[in-house]
């Protein structure tokens, strides 16, 4: 059934057709290797292998994929077509700026659009993903304080934060201090005050947070952090929840990253490539990674590498450029009005779906949510069940499961993000499935325990897989 490509290989086949060598063969004066051991198959066999593999995936184009904080919205087809244009896909990063004016203009325009959307002054499009954006942002902040001659080494993160926040802070050489959430799911102001000092470099905040709740105290939080001289970092994973209704720049954030593969509809590709542009307020602009796109007086665009205060480079070249092309296509397709409608529908969908299941499922923080919400499956414990069992049963009912067991502050968390690209009917079917599962849990818990039954493989034994990991075929 799940034969590997290596197990299908047979001698005497090829899946490619290369042109003949049209220059004389040179003497090979470098050491060379013996065989590699790559499989050999014909093109139809390779195509069939991967087509059949693809059929073992659930995907957004197949059905509802409500992974919380992942913003699994429809990925418009036109975006893919635009990114595949030879005028973008076939550009070489070392070609002269004069021969890549359209690409530079696109990056410039996307920067302008992201500035308007977030309320920041300037963006770098180099970071390859959200976590990479976080690291970039923290490097920028660190450089800012270095220039000011201040030694600050503490990064505050709420207990509801994404795991990447503390991991990025550690990678930036900082000490992580956790701030508690209060009874409404926001930052606990008293705890924040207790932890603020002149050693605090930044507070990293997702707003709306991972509970899907907008922190109503955001202006006070910004004031408190700024009062001790610290900066405020915005994790843009949840930009979807307020885009067009409020901007992080107006909330007091000094640095933001946005995830083009979330809010701006670029596909996640089974794990990437993403793109995590970082926007900053003016005082941080000199430190942005090189190169920076500039517009000259004559209207021509160029890459500026001569920036004495730059933090350097965060990766090679200009980042995941083709992902930027897709996001720009999306922004033009929606425009300001569409972006506002996008958020309105995403938030309406989330609240409507929540209203259909709350009561049956425990809602730890009962407020109007933004684009996502978090339920607790704590009560399933009485039937010997865990949140994983609920998730696996959802797979049987034809849905992808929500994010589970996160955020950590909710016991047995189910984090649901429907997005604006789902219909009312889909939300109702999903709610029905969740209600059925709760009923099954009470009456036939084995249905959950033994789930999934209707998927390409049954429940996987992760414990055994981790005991003596097999990481490659031999």
């Amino acid at each position, binding site marked *: *059934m799940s034969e590997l490509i290596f197990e299908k290989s047979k001698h005497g086949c090829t899946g490619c057709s*290369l042109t003949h060598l049209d220059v004389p063969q040179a003497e090979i004066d470098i050491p060379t290797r013996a065989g590699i051991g790559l499989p050999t198959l014909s093109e139809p066999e390779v195509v069939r292998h991967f087509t059949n593999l693809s059929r073992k995936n659930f995907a957004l184009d197949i059905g509802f994929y409500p992974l919380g904080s992942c913003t699994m919205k429809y990925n418009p087809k036109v975006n893919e077509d635009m990114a595949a244009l030879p*005028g973008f896909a076939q550009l070489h990063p070392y070609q002269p700026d004069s021969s890549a004016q359209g690409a530079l203009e696109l990056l410039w325009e996307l920067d302008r659009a992201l500035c308007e959307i977030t309320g920041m002054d300037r963006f770098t499009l180099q970071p390859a993903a959200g976590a990479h954006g976080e690291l970039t942002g923290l490097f920028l902040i660190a450089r800012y304080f270095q220039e000011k001659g201040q030694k600050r080494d503490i990064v505050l993160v709420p207990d509801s934060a994404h795991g990447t926040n503390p991991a990025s802070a550690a990678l930036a050489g900082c000490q992580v201090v956790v701030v508690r959430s209060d009874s409404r799911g926001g930052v606990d102001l008293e705890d924040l005050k207790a932890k603020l000092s002149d050693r605090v470099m930044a507070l990293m905040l997702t707003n709306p947070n991972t509970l899907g709740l907008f922190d109503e105290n955001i202006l006070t939080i910004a004031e408190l952090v700024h009062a001790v001289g610290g900066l405020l970092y915005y994790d843009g994973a949840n930009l979807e929840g307020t885009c067009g209704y409020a901007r992080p720049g107006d909330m007091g954030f000094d640095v933001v990253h946005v995830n083009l593969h979330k809010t701006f509809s670029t596909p996640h590709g089974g794990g990437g490539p993403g793109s995590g542009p970082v926007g900053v307020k003016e005082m941080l602009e000199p430190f942005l990674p090189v190169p920076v796109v500039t517009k000259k007086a004559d209207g021509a665009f160029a890459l500026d590498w001569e920036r004495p205060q730059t933090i350097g480079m965060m990766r*090679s070249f200009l980042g995941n450029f083709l992902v930027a092309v897709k996001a720009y296509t999306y922004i033009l397709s929606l425009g300001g009005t569409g972006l506002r409608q996008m958020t309105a529908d995403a938030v309406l969908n989330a609240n*409507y779906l929540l209203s259909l299941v709350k009561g049956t499922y425990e809602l730890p923080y009962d407020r109007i949510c933004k684009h996502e919400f978090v339920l607790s499956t704590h009560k399933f414990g009485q039937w010997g069940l865990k949140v994983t069992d609920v998730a696996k049963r959802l797979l049987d009912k034809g849905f992808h499961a929500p994010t589970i067991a996160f955020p950590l502050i909710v016991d047995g968390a189910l984090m649901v993000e429907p997005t604006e690209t789902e219909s009312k009917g889909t939300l109702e079917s999903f709610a029905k499935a969740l209600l059925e599962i709760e009923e099954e849990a009470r009456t036939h818990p084995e249905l959950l325990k033994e789930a999934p039954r209707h998927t390409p493989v049954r429940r996987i034994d992760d414990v055994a*897989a981790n005991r003596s*990991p097999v990481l490659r075929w031999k």
Partner: protein
Amino acid sequence: MRYFPLTPDDRVEMLGALGLSSTEDLFADIPAAIRIRQPFSIPALFEPEVVERLESLAAKNLNTKSTSSFLGGGIYRHYVPAAIKHLLMRAEFYTAYTPYQAEVSQGTLQAVFEYQTMICLLTGMEVANASMYDGATAVAEASLMARSITGRKRVLVAGSLHPQYRATLRTYLHLQGLELVEVPWDERGALDLSRVCAEEAACLIVQSPNFFGLVEEMSAAGQWIHAAGGIFVHAFAEAASLGLLPPSASFDADIACGEGQSLGMPPSYGGPGLGIFAAKEKYVRRMPGRLIGEALDADGQRAFTMVLATREQHIRREKATSNICSNQALCALNALIYLSLLGEEGFRQVAEQCYHKAHYLAERLQAVAGLKPTFAAPFFNEVAFTIPGSPQALNAYLLKHGILGGIALDRDYPGLANSWLVAATEMNSKEQIDALVARVAQWRGGLA
């Protein structure tokens, strides 16, 4: 808006069910002082207008498909078999998320497992991860892993490592309090270890072929750093070289990492590409990134799942081996399909053709009066020439004649002011090479 399924009636009905009278009520928790009442100024375009706008931007660029190009420097144009895009564009692959629910992600998971195996085959290493962002960040993570293994804080890096990888490394290491020491090259362009000290070094990072295209003597470098207890990192920026050159394991590299764009991806103005990362098995728990392992399901059938996640940020938080979450999964699939189609013979042929084309190019350029190779060490598919005059001027001349020439090395290497780096792959025909050489000769003639 065509992407939004809610109808105006749906919206009214749903708001009603929530006991709200308007959309604004959904945002009442946002303080009034910062709530936006008007849409952004960005105009919305109809789909045909969007296409026209993007096509017009694309048309302003000179692309390497319609132009003859000799640019390399970590991004290479190789033939991409037609089947690849059709498979990558299967929505089951590209519209899926990270495989958090393994039972409905077996396609992605098995593909990554196969990809990890392919990378182990190419490099000879024992384990490979699911991908990093690119070659530069893969190298940066390798140095942090070496620090974690050895507890040492000095990172030795070849000056001939890709300048942008070195720049990235500097950015990453700065705040970790790690010291970066550059190892010079000798007059042949090869690594010169005689002027640096291996003591207390966490690792030695050597790119081969190096940024100048030269093949390094890796065994000696490996022995040198191992004798001092450091980690040996093999970096590469042209993955096609792995089809011909000895694998990383053959010279006892502890970590092999680099850029995989050559494995079936277009140049894409530098991204997305593929960060490749492989290591010796004994270091697997210190590796960054996602790892996929073989498993069994409840019926005892073969399956695949994420393993050793306790190294990762979503479990370990600030104690994770890296902060990476999203990677370049679709690019890893791209590389896997490419290698599956090319197979043993095809991949070897690509590497050999690159070698022969570049050597033909070098031989012809050498015949132009006043041009001579900057370095004498053997090269793979890229070679630097010292030219009589400015490389920028030569490039501008060539561009006027529709040729994307080479890389002027002076921005990154002020000591190599007249050095011009040219690359050739199987995509450069003899005709293109001859035309380039003729133009270079003409330009040279104009100087005299």
